């Protein structure tokens, strides 16, 4: 999968560097309030994924970052804006269908544990901090925890003109 390769930024590299520095500090200049960001455990070597790959991860279809390193999805809390956006815009599904998918995946032996469900964006990022391969989706305003970082989607970061995780 492309997501194990080096990032392929389509936007201006200088702008990406500025954004990356800002993101590393936990703030997103130019990011709109209706944007969402993907955060991962800091040890993940992937810098960018395509939107299709992101869908596969949150649909539990793609289960590994690389050989030997499984993807652990941390879901935003039921009823939260992040969860609603994740299910509707990323998974293109419903919360009920998500529950059923989890039952199906566990019954088929494709998942060995239910995903974590974090009560808040902050808690989701805390869970990532202690993980080797976790991923979550939070509102752009959330502050990164040490040991976590942002993941670009289609080479775009929040605030980029073609950033896909915008409501």
């Amino acid at each position: 999968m492309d997501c194990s390769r080096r990032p392929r930024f389509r936007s201006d590299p200088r702008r990406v560097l500025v954004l990356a520095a800002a993101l590393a500090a936990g703030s997103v200049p130019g990011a709109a309030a209706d944007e969402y960001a993907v955060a991962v455990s800091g040890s993940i070597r992937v810098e960018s994924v395509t939107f299709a790959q992101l869908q596969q991860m949150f649909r539990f279809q793609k289960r590994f970052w690389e050989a030997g390193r499984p993807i652990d999805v941390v879901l935003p809390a039921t009823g939260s804006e992040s969860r609603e956006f994740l299910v509707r815009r990323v998974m293109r599904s419903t919360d009920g269908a998500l529950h059923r998918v989890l039952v199906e995946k566990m019954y088929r032996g494709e998942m060995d544990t239910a995903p974590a469900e974090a009560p808040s964006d902050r808690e989701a990022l805390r869970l990532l901090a202690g993980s080797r391969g976790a991923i979550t989706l939070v509102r752009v305003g959330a502050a990164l925890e040490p040991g976590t970082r942002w993941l670009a989607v289609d080479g775009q970061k929040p605030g980029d003109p073609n950033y896909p995780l915008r409501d």
Partner: protein
Amino acid sequence: MTAFALCAGIAGAAGADALTPQISIHGFSDVTLGLTRDNPPAGPAVNDASFALGQFDLYIVSRLSENLSFLGETVIETDASGATVIDLERAFVKFAWSDAFAVSAGRTHTPLGWWNEAYHHGAMLQPTIARPLALRFEDDGGLLPVHAVGLELSGVAPVGGWEASWVGNVANGRGPIPDEVQAGADLNRHKAVALKLTLERHGDGDLAFGVNGYLDHIPPDLADPARGAEIRERIGGAHARLRFGRGELLAEGFLVRHDDPVSGGTFRHRAGYVVLVAGEGRARPYVGYDRLDAQGGDPFYGAAAADFTAGTAGLRFELHPFDTIKLEFRHEAFEGGHRNGLFAQTAFSF
């Protein structure tokens, strides 16, 4: 469930070895009311109205480490006499190294078509109340060896904009009679081998189609003089699943061939079904067609292999993500007779 999922997820996401395996216990069951009118080949029609408690399916999924897991599944059911029967359905340990490679050892579902691995005992998951005839369980007149004890390898890899998934296994295979899955030993040296290849495309809809093959030598049945030698069994199949905004289509077909050296005969049985589920909401109507063209005289199946067709029309309503209500009318035709039935079922997960 949320609290449990959170605890399990935290430990799982942390990626550290837990002090004990992290176990999730879930299951399926169902209750069905059936109103039927049976018109047998001889004798008067028989009407019946009965409640039926479905299988009590209990499965355990346990994460042993980041890459190692266990799944065990047990079914408790009552037979026609009311006696309780307990069957070990699956028990396997799985080592998953990447999306492209996983290996499982133990008792698994044989990789034959779509339904067998996707739904199996999950009555809530399957689109209809009744299972297609070919995919009924070995102890319920099914045509296929739906369970296997052995080694299974599987994986999925991207191919262009598609995903190619594969499942192959080497197993003991069938016992001397259709009901028997050889779990403790293999009565002959030949191992059953199966391979399923599926091409899938995911997006706003899903498209999957594939083929599967199965080879085995069925050991002789020493209690039956007509079964004094091994029967060579070959099974070929194809499956397709299309899920789109306004519905879902599921279709499978199988050809079973038995070469029997005692009678010198070759017996071919064809089976298949199509199910179309319309709509995308909680209430979804469906229709289905199920058919078996059996060749008489097969010493392995005996009288169990007989021509059969069934037409189904129903409505499934998702009361909750973990509980589905189904109303189904079914007409079944078999050699010399037919049966009509109206069924109502609640099928749930817990």
